[in-house]
């Protein structure tokens, strides 16, 4: 079942800046989609448009086939984890997690049950009475996730949630996020600039460049069959070498002296042959 549909979604700022020309994306239920791209490519903007924190200038956003363009963030049944966690500093961990439910008018005993369930799942039970400032970075990150999870939203949105953690914790949290997402089966949209994160987490990746989706596909697809030079150069570390060449009848002409014969249709093959001929 399709869960989230972005149809020709675009964003133009009041000053005329065309941040996102047009993006089409269909997300299946339970899918983990990662938006990746260099900074300034519009990936956060796109996420915030889904969240309702930015208005959508053109196109349509549908969640469970319901048009969402004009809905307030709270009415979209989504939950977001922010880069700086955005925990309410004056509230205890419990209150932080309960606040959204309280605003929705859920009865107190039900809130308590939900929060303690989620806290147990994230290993936060001991910390429920603490204030955010008494927590470490990793614990804050968990609370931020807990706050998103208690609401049982249709869609999780993550905005570079791991970029404030140290390298070791980042890897650990990455695994944990993926496990939780599988367990809950919640559709997830995840923004990152870190390609390792993107490649390891995603069911499908969206590579964005200057507000355009360069390629949408599984990590292996993107790695093996990049659709554009941009994707080819962006994915992989160290990045792929790109060399200008002319396609002639004899083959691929790199220079006057060196022409590679055209033996395969496959682009991956060209790469392979080139590598072989340089090593000879």
């Amino acid at each position, binding site marked *: 079942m399709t869960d989230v549909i972005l149809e020709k979604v675009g964003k133009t700022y009041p000053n005329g800046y065309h941040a996102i020309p047009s993006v089409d994306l269909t997300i299946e239920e339970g899918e983990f989609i990662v938006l990746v791209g260099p900074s300034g490519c519009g990936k956060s903007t796109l996420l915030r448009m889904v969240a309702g*924190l930015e208005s959508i200038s053109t196109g349509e956003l549908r969640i469970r086939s319901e048009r969402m363009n004009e809905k307030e963030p*709270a009415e979209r049944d989504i939950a977001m984890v922010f880069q*700086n966690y*955005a925990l*309410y*500093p*004056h509230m205890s961990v419990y209150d932080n997690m309960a*606040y959204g439910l309280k605003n929705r008018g859920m009865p107190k005993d039900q809130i308590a049950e939900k929060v303690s369930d989620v806290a147990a799942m994230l290993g936060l039970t001991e910390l429920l009475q603490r204030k955010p400032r008494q927590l470490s970075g990793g614990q804050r990150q968990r609370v931020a996730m807990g*706050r998103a999870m208690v609401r049982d939203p249709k869609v999780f949105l993550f905005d570079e949630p791991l970029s404030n953690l140290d390298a070791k914790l980042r890897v650990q949290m990455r695994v944990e996020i993926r496990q939780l997402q599988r367990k809950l089966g919640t559709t997830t949209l995840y923004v990152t600039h870190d390609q390792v994160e993107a490649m390891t987490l995603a069911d499908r990746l969206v590579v964005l460049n200057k507000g355009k989706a360069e390629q949408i596909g599984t990590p292996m697809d993107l790695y093996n069959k990049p659709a554009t030079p941009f994707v080819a150069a962006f994915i992989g570390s160290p990045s792929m070498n790109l060399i200008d060449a002319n396609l002639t009848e004899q083959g691929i002409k790199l220079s006057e002296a060196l022409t590679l014969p055209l033996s395969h249709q496959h682009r991956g093959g060209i790469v392979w042959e080139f590598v072989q001929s340089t090593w000879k």
Partner: protein
Amino acid sequence: MIENRPWLTFASHATLFTGIALVALPVWLALVASTHPASAFGVGHIPLWFGDAGAETWGTVLFEKAGNGVDTPVWFMMLNSLIMALGITFGKIAISLLSAYAIVFFRFPFRNLCFWVIFMTLMLPVEVRIVPTYEVVANLDLLNSYTGLTLPLIASATATFLFRQCFLSIPGELVEAARMDGAGPWRFFFDILLPLSRTNIAALFVILFIYGWNQYLWPLLITTDDAYYTLVMSIKRMLSVTDGDIAWNQIMATTLLAMLPPVAVVIGMQKLFVKGLVDSEK
């Protein structure tokens, strides 16, 4: 670095004690003067040690009448002062919180202009606009009333500016998180913004309470009825005796009593006050 230089310790302590003595001397003199009978001041020198009329003077001033032409007792004027000071303080805080909230978090046309117009009123304290303000208050029939005492002093550019700075330091993600959590403008204001600016409110409370308590010119101008005399302005009335001796003992007692509430507020809220001005834990 730990230093052990006895002379330095001695010198710094001596300086501090001299400072304390200088600052406290007038208060001490006032306290001593209030314990002598009124006749003690005619002879031309100031007593330095307590006399024996203290209990009588303080009792009269506090519960019967302040004296020197002011017939209301100090406790009653203290109550008036308190109503005025608290009215001004809470009014200022409430109004400036709301205006800062509007300026920082809402997008409306001429937002910046509004801010600068509010800011410009800094140049128009009561003393400058006293004649038109009096006119307005008189036309509204608010002379000799608590509303008349407080209302014209309530608008505050300083507090608005302070709260604006405080709100600007609240990260945008927090506002967005609250929106995602379904908090509307009022919920956000009461659940998030107020608790976060608690220490700033406390710091402003101290400053504004003292400001309100010390109001002198405005109450002097618009109250002619004993029932609305405030403590600070009564001291001025007590001094303007046309014939006969000025009862310095009663004036000193009244003055000291007038000092007590602000001192109590400062001491009581010292911790929060310092925190509100220094701390920015957000």
